[in-house]
């Protein structure tokens, strides 16, 4: 199995479990499933194939060990502002996003991304970090392409909101 695929497997497991040790458990289990159970890879996109198994394993693992993690919900409306009213506000002179972007270092992005519900976190990781097509993301996450589209759109808005909040409280 190519090294980049293993990195991708670990990266996804790490973002879904949000813990380095748990990610190791998930990757080992996924590796066993992939190569012992399914008799290895049978053609096509090896990375998407492995990521599908990693994702499935991670969710099973969470269900069994930390079910509360599956219900992480970023509360987007606590201030009573509607999502699209707030974060898609037109550009103006003191654009908060410019400020937010300037301050968004890796650590802050990590904190923000960890706060999103797993279904938004995973599509963002697969698209932005793995640079996968919508078709591949749909296959891996087991959802229609239209759902990939709407989850990415919403996930990006949510992430931006969380980053803005982090920036305000910093």
């Amino acid at each position, binding site marked *: 199995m190519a090294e980049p695929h293993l*990195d991708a497997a670990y990266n996804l497991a790490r973002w879904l479990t949000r813990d380095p040790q748990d990610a*190791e458990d998930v990757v080992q289990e996924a590796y066993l499933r992939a190569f*012992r159970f399914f008799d290895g890879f049978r053609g096509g996109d090896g990375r*998407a194939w492995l990521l599908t198994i990693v994702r499935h394993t991670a969710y099973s693992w969470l269900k069994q060990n930390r079910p509360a993690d599956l219900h992480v919900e970023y509360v987007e409306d606590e201030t009573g502002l509607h999502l699209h009213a707030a974060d898609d506000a037109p550009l103006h002179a003191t654009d908060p996003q410019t400020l937010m*972007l300037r301050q968004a270092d*890796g650590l802050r992005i990590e904190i923000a991304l960890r706060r999103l519900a797993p279904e938004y976190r995973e599509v963002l990781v697969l698209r932005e*970090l793995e640079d996968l097509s919508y078709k591949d993301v749909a296959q891996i996450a087991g959802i229609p392409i239209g759902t990939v589209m709407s989850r990415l759109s919403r996930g990006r808005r949510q992430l931006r909101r969380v980053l803005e909040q982090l920036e305000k409280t910093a």
Partner: protein
Amino acid sequence: MNPNCDEVRELLSAYADAELDLARTLSLESHLAVCAECTARLQRLRDFSRVLRERAPYHRMPAALKSRLPGLLDDDDGRAAAGPRQHGRGQILQWALPIAAALTLSVGLNLLIGSRRADGALVDEVVAGHVRSMMVAHLDDVASTDRHTVKPWFAGKLDYAPPVFDLAAHGFPLAGGRLDYLDHRAVAALDYRRGRHVINVFVWPAAGAESEAEPLTNSGYNIERWTVGGMRWWAISDLNAGELTSFAEQLRAAAIGAE
């Protein structure tokens, strides 16, 4: 059609990813040409995406884990899966042992438990068939919700006529069918749906007494299997066990009704 800003907003993210179909791309671009607000939003989306790609941490696999992975496969009983930490070891064993046990049984005890062995191997095949089907772009060779389209498609491709039932009224619409290979023979694979969940049903002729649906969980998938009308049926899905059981009952009832 001239989309308004709200509609455009929903599509901008996919447009920025170059994942929008041509028709919507054209209509969106004609809007962007005259709307400064949406154009600015698009720019913000692109900036944001670039920042994420540049700065979000990418977690590469630790070298120690990388070197440990191939060893997992060497060990017969999965004990090599134990990592350096006890916590992990326990969890992995809990996961790996049923798999290892199934393999050991299927290899070592086949004389003692003939039929169980056969089913054990079949479970692997069914799970693999299901996973494979989820990996391809087109799940079905014949895509139709109409059983009068799906059923005739199998004629000439199989040496039997698979029973195809319409369960849409029970909330399990048919989506299509394809050929698969199980138990050393070509079989019919039918694709039913429950919401966004795919239920693969494999059906082929089998001798043996009629049986109730028997549930099973393997590799994170729920499975139901039964025999009715001289056919062996296996249904597998990531659907929850309760709903899959009710699906199996509906399908079984339909087959009994057709006898």
